[in-house]
């Protein structure tokens, strides 16, 4: 469908985009993320033929952008960051103009324009001047402009920016519908939007693609652990013993009520007060690497509220734990049986997915310091 091969763009002095390489299949909705100035808009502009790449090639449905520009462009619908509207035109005359411009056959134009008015809720505003439309309607008209010719590939540059929450929901719904017939590439700053809409995420940073993955598999891609939140009834110490004895568990942490403090290895050394217990339980026996130290820590909150030295609460009380497993492995089942065997009822278990925010921040800030 879309093939972007080794595409680079050099601006006068600085490098805009360097050797971007990806393909998109029909029916995909791809979210394009990156901090401001990373090269998102530049990449989109090259795909739509607004800019020519300095190197590399872009092919749409087998048509090369550089050789069959006009033909390739007719397969694309593009909504730039600011919708390209003429303020002195009416909605109707604008749509007619775009239909002509985008080769919509004259016979079909009326039908197609009506379809657009329906789909985007622009009915009753046909004769209104674009100048007087609200931002939301301008955005919708911009979208109408991009899809009026039923393009194979739809490129949307921040389609929901500047809209109110209701309009955002409407536009997202629309994009989801469009995704059924068209291939969609959309850029956005709203990360949850990507989880909601896209079946693939591309993160671009400093002109290079740093991630290409499905949104639900981000954790794996990042080599990140999965953490579980447990609520167990029973004495704290013995529960921790049971949980940390499981082979794949690398970290157990007590979580206070709505109060949580990260307790990784390095932090443990710096904050000795919070460290209550260091156990290197049966990991070697389970054939695991010895350096997978299991740390158990209780935060300050827990300490200050409970009596010093008394870790195990009265029976009948529950504790909340955060459990991290190694290699993205699923320890839920093992946890369940282990706790059940020990006779501690498991009241709640929740898996915490690696959030896109985490991945995004990590990918786009780490490399900054690395380059500097």
């Amino acid at each position: 469908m879309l093939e972007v091969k080794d595409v680079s763009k050099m601006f006068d002095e600085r490098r805009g985009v360097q050797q971007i390489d990806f393909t998109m299949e029909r029916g995909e909705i791809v979210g394009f993320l990156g901090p401001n100035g990373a090269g998102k808009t530049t990449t989109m502009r090259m795909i739509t033929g607004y800019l020519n790449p300095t190197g590399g090639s872009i092919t749409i449905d087998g048509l090369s952008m550089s050789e069959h520009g006009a033909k390739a462009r007719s397969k694309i619908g593009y909504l730039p960051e600011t919708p390209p509207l003429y303020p002195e035109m009416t909605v109707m005359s604008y749509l007619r103009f775009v239909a002509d411009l985008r080769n919509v056959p004259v016979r079909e134009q009326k039908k197609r324009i009506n379809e657009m008015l329906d789909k985007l809720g622009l009915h009753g505003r046909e004769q209104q001047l674009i100048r007087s439309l609200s931002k939301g309607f301008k955005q919708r008209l911009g979208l109408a402009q991009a899809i009026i010719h039923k393009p194979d590939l739809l490129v949307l540059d921040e389609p929901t920016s500047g809209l109110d929450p209701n309009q955002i929901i409407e536009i997202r719904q629309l994009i989801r519908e469009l995704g059924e017939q068209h291939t969609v590439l959309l850029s956005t700053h709203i990360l949850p939007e990507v989880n909601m809409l896209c079946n693939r995420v591309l993160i671009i940073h400093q002109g290079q693609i740093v991630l290409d993955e499905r949104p639900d598999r981000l954790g794996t891609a990042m080599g990140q652990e999965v953490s579980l939140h447990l609520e167990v009834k029973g004495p704290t110490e013995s529960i921790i013993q049971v949980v940390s004895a499981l082979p794949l568990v690398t970290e157990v942490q007590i979580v206070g009520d709505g109060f949580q403090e990260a307790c990784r290895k390095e932090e443990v050394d710096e904050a000795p007060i919070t460290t209550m217990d260091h156990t290197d339980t049966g990991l070697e026996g389970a054939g695991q690497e010895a350096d997978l130290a299991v740390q158990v820590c209780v935060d300050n909150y827990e300490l200050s509220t409970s009596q010093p030295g008394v870790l195990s609460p009265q029976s009948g009380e529950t504790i909340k734990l955060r459990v991290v497993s190694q290699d993205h492995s699923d320890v839920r089942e093992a946890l369940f049986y282990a706790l059940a065997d020990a006779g501690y009822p498991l009241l709640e278990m929740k898996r915490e997915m690696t959030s896109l925010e985490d991945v995004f921040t990590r990918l786009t800030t780490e490399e900054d310091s690395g380059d500097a």
Partner: protein
Amino acid sequence: MRRFNAIFRKEMHAYFTSPTSYVAFAVYVLISSILFYMNFVMFQPSIIDFRLVSGNATFMYVFVIPLLTMRLFSDEFRQGTDELLLTSPARMTEIVLGKYAAALVLMVVLVGFTLIYPIVMSFYGTLDMKMMITSIIGMLLLTAAMAAVGLFASTLSQHQMVTAIASFVMLLTFWTMLDWAASSSGTLGEWLMPFAMNTRLDSFMKGVLNGADVLFFITLTAVFVVLSIQVLERKRWR
């Protein structure tokens, strides 16, 4: 062709809904009629000759045409609508020619306004019709070339003022070429002379249809239209 038409219609619509073109026409009509009043009514010439007013009128084109052409591409850049045009299946030639055609219609209107004066004159004596016709052809060719210069200037900047000043400077250069040629002695003068727009126009005003002069204006037009296409095509490589 349909895309050319679409752009042409859109431009015409923009011209007739924007105040700038009305103001430009109004200023032109105002000043040229004041000049007509001074040259014809106050001066009371003994002969009826279109040249009494055409010289002033054509010089005014140097100021008016930049105002009429400045928005052609500058506006697109400013509104970001060039992204729509350049990513549409329309070829650059279609876009540029569509816009230029709309500017040409305006030039015809502009020359039309100038014809008010010979009509007024004809009440007080007989006009040389052949001379009138060649004059009109000459003025149309002149304005067409000037519009092409304005079109080219509008591809250079997103600011209408910058565009207007750029095309004004270019047109004035062509207009004052004659004076430069006269003041510079020898071969340089000979080189500059053929590019003076007003000397080229003189033959039309005298009732002479000179092939070289016709070709001069057509070539000038073509050169600037092609230059506009090239500048826009280059923007993709920015």
